[in-house]
């Protein structure tokens, strides 16, 4: 992918997997930013990510065999260490020093496997966004994964305006169409690397997903605070408080809260890996709450997926189609400008080398 056709930001951390996807020595084949990778956990516990292509004849390393922290191609037996260097060629004593495959910086944190697809020298773990609820024992959730046949930015768009809750998720996550008409973002804050939106819906019908685990009260004051960060990371804090009890003034008696993280990692320009968790901080002894929330979210996300994958099909059918801006697009427009500047900067830095 040359600089002229650069479709993604590369010098940033993406989520490559949940840790549970690597249990039992699995060699996970996963394409990220159009690069086929093999990801695995070695015997030492270290997580390794390599190009999923043997440098000899191009066989998939994910069809190979893990040996300690190393991996062996099971076509002609070349063996690679976690840094990607070839360390054994069966029947050949001399190994060319540069023979190997590309390895990618990995950081494992709070059950997430983060990967840096760009210049490895710039991979600073301090740049990984922190979502402390994943490690805080007072929050309980069920991490999950979903695959989208759509560009990741279409999913970012979807989350940039909660009004879609009313129409896409009326019977699952939203609760009523009045959410779109009666509630408006009370604050949209531009961030250097994204945006923050706060939205209140007072005296709202209890949303169906919450009602399943908390049948009363019938009506709530609902607050969502969402943050969207480059390249496609979404954090949301949700508060549901009995209607009229003064949650907006700080009274949280009887309130229930959720924390939601969503990570969108481009697989290709038209497909996305979607990692998410929805956590609660009450009745932690009851595992059914996390399970119910997980199922409700899947139900809701499948509604998004249906809509967004359809949108991708429509966009693919006419490459010249231009979207139309409306006022509610301000957060997503800011997000795309922010992302665009970073991609342009990467592209500019690559130009001299390309020339």
């Amino acid at each position, binding site marked *: 992918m040359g600089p*002229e*056709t*650069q*479709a*993604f930001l590369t010098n940033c951390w993406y989520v490559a997997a949940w840790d549970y996807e690597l249990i039992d020595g699995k060699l996970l084949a996963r394409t990220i930013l159009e690069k086929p990778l093999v990801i695995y956990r070695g015997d030492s516990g270290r997580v390794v990510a390599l190009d999923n292509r043997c440098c000899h004849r191009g066989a998939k390393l994910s069809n190979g065999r893990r040996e300690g922290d190393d991996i062996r191609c099971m076509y002609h037996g070349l063996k690679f260490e976690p840094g990607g260097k070839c360390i054994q060629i069966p029947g050949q004593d001399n190994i060319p020093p540069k023979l190997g495959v590309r390895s990618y910086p990995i950081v494992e944190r709070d059950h997430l496997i983060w990967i840096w697809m760009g210049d490895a020298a710039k991979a600073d773990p301090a740049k990984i966004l922190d979502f402390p609820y994943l490690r805080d024992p007072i929050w309980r959730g069920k991490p999950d994964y979903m695959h989208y046949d759509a560009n990741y*930015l279409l999913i970012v768009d979807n989350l940039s305006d909660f009004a879609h809750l009313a129409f896409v998720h009326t019977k699952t996550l939203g609760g009523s169409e009045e959410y779109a008409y009666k509630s408006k973002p009370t604050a*949209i804050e*531009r961030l250097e690397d994204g945006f923050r939106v706060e939205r209140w819906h007072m005296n709202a019908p209890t949303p169906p997903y919450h009602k399943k685990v908390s049948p009363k009260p019938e009506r709530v004051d609902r607050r969502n605070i969402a943050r969207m960060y480059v390249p496609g990371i979404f954090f949301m804090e949700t508060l549901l408080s009995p209607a009229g009890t003064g949650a907006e003034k700080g009274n949280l008696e009887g309130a229930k809260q959720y924390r939601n993280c969503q990570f969108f990692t481009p697989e290709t*320009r038209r497909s996305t890996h979607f990692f998410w968790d929805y956590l609660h901080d009450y009745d932690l002894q009851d595992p059914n709450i996390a399970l119910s929330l997980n199922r409700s979210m899947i139900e809701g996300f499948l509604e998004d997926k249906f809509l967004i994958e359809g949108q991708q099909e429509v*966009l693919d059918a006419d*490459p010249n*189609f*231009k*979207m*139309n*801006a*409306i*006022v509610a*697009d*301000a957060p997503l*427009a*800011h997000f*795309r*400008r922010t*992302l*665009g500047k970073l*991609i342009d900067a990467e592209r500019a830095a690559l130009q001299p080398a390309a020339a």
Partner: protein
Amino acid sequence: MRLALALVVALGGCSTVWDPHAPSTVTAHEEGGAVTVKHGNRLHVPLTSEAGSGYEWRLVEPPVRIVVAEGPPDEEGLYFTPVRDGEEQLRLEYRPVTGDGPAQRTVSYDVTVPPERTLFGRLRAAFRWR
């Protein structure tokens, strides 16, 4: 003069590899002047504040707009979205952040949002004309 300024307005901000379907953006001239933006497009006013100057751009007119600002100015200026047909003047002043003191610079834009050429719009315009 108005025509000349209108001609330098650039239509862009679209057709990138990573965002091929982005709405078109009309970028106005930094010095002000006439600019036309269609419904569904964005208007970019490239007035940027000098960092550390203690000044910032503020939209002072009009209170009711045919284009709505997407938010306060950022390092690229201001972005607007058309919401009604019509013509109006946007006036921006480069004022001290503290709110005190005179404007150092004023820039005005004569903005036109043309009606959409739908059959209904044409009929409505025809009846209005009569």
